[in-house]
């Protein structure tokens, strides 16, 4: 369960004389266990900052959030034990293999060696990347690297997943493997916060969504609720319409 309560993040102005940047503005929502909650918005809307606040690597300027009851401001270390993060534009340690990367993050999450080895093998099999498990990351394709990120986020079997565009730049096959993996994780009762630009993917994996515009949450609901009476409408059209309404 993730509950945000008036979550706000303001950054210092990039140059003197300019106003401060309000990246996230009084955002409140709730993502429940066994549900994929989509966080949608255009570039710069505040999705990534929201996820960074939830992963405790940024501190909110105002408001707070709770992850399985733990406060992100007061109990950041407990929060980090409960989350698996796939961040956008992240890289891997080029000189480590996927197996070593998983071992590193498993150990950082206090998972014992035997469990790490077992889970690594399971994850590599599920993500169809066993043959790359012992190659250095520098030799891997973009798709395989992204799979390593997903596996890394799952190595501690966290109850909460924060996924920021986990399929960005992936080919269809890799993206499908990742999506199926997310759906499977949902079936295991995990709370999943998911941000994406690809509306067909949102329709496929998300149960409920919130749309963020200029840092503020403008609408929240199930896909069906947001589509309204036009149940057969493409969600992409619904998204664009809602953004337009948000501008007004």
């Amino acid at each position, binding site marked *: 369960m993730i509950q945000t309560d008036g979550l706000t993040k303001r950054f210092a102005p990039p140059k003197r004389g300019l106003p401060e940047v309000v990246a996230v503005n009084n955002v409140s929502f709730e993502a429940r266990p066994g549900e994929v909650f989509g966080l949608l918005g255009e570039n710069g809307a505040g999705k990534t900052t929201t996820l960074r606040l939830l992963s405790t690597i940024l501190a909110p300027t105002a408001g707070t959030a709770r992850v399985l009851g733990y406060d992100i401001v007061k109990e950041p270390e407990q929060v980090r034990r409960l989350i698996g993060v796939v961040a956008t534009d992240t890289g891997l340690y080029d000189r480590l293999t996927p197996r070593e990367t998983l071992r590193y993050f498993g150990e*950082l999450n206090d998972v014992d060696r035997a469990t790490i080895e077992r889970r690594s093998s399971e994850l590599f099999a599920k993500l169809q990347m066993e043959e790359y498990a012992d190659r250095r990351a520098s030799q891997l394709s973009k798709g395989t690297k992204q799979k390593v990120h997903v596996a890394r986020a799952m190595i501690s079997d966290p109850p909460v997943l924060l996924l920021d565009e986990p399929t960005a730049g992936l080919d269809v096959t890799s993206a499908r493997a990742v999506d199926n993996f997310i759906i499977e994780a949902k079936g295991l009762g995990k709370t999943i916060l998911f941000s994406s630009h690809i509306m067909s993917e949102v329709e496929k994996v998300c149960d409920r969504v919130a749309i963020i515009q200029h840092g503020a949450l403008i609408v929240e609901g199930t896909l069906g609720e947001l589509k309204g009476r036009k149940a057969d409408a493409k969600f992409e059209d619904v998204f664009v319409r809602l953004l337009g309404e948000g501008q007004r």
Partner: protein
Amino acid sequence: MSERLTGLNWRHVSIVARKEFTDTLRDRRTWLAMVVLPLVIVPVLLLVAPSAIQSQIDKVEESVAAVAVVGGEDAQRFLGFLSQVEGVSIVQSVSPEADLTARKIQAVLELPAGFDADIAAEKAVEVEIAYDAADQKSASAQGRLMEVISAYSAIVAEARLTSRGVDPKLLSPIAATSRNVAPPAKMGGAFLSMVMPMMIAIWAVTGGMYAAIDGTAGEKERGTMEVLLAAPPSRGSIAVGKFIVVTATSLFSAVISVVAMIAAFAIKPEALAFGAPAGSVAVALPIGRLALIAVASIGVAAIFAAIQLAVALFARGFREAQAYLAPLSIIVVLPGIATQYMPVADAANWAFAVPLLNAILVYKELLEGIVNWTHIGTVLVSSLVFAYLCLQVTVALFRREQVVFRT
């Protein structure tokens, strides 16, 4: 927000350190900076460079100086003497000053009219040597001519005294000879203490530089920093894990540089000192003192590891970090240069409390055979306290969003 280093999770520290070690040891650049460069550059600096300089000096010394004589029509006796001197050749020149400036000749010797006659009449005679001090060969020719004139002057003086029935030895009542009582090992220690402290300091900084950059600015550039910070370990544990690896890398590099220096000098001890007779200089450093040099280096390595991590963390990427850290390798040389010719016994007590400077002084002591436990202890304590303070700054920076997300 401030996190005390006492609240660290040492299990996390060790996990981060182990990973950083693996990563660092797989990085060719680290190996290059940590091992290959000291192993190559140190012998080149200490053996090849002095040999090259010596061979240049020898070349100048061995060359024959072309000297044009102005006047001297009635100085046949002196010119006869000069023409027999090795390394000097009298040449004809229509415009001697121009030839000297054009470096066609190395010196112009101006003799007054009636030179031989004035000498015979026991008058004082003045001659002038024109030379180009900006030209090594010309400067050498000037020296040689001064010696020739001095020798001729002595011969003339001796003849005058003898003609009066006076023993020329009366003019040199005291004959002095010198005897060096320093055994070769002490000589070696004295020379080592001039060059070695600087070298150790340089490698204690540059050896860990890549590890420091890779673990901070490198993590930012690769995009691995964000997921690392989203993992359970505190920023303090992450920073200290990295700090341990950078310190160890720097220390290892310093030790390698010492080994390279000792090996270089063991092969050619004369390289330590210009002009020292063969066999008069030797390198003999007992393993105990070498170990103490390594111990004294721990603090230096720790201080610079913390500083380098802090500075490199602030940088947006690898190149920016390199640019920020480059001046450190110059700064680190300064205490070495300032104390290069300073007898360590003259060092004030306060100097032993100044980080880096105190390590340089203790290196000098150890190389000269002095083991002063108070000094060694002071160096260790003051360096580690200073390193701890630097590390606090590094940890504080790891906790600052503006620094960690400065990309």
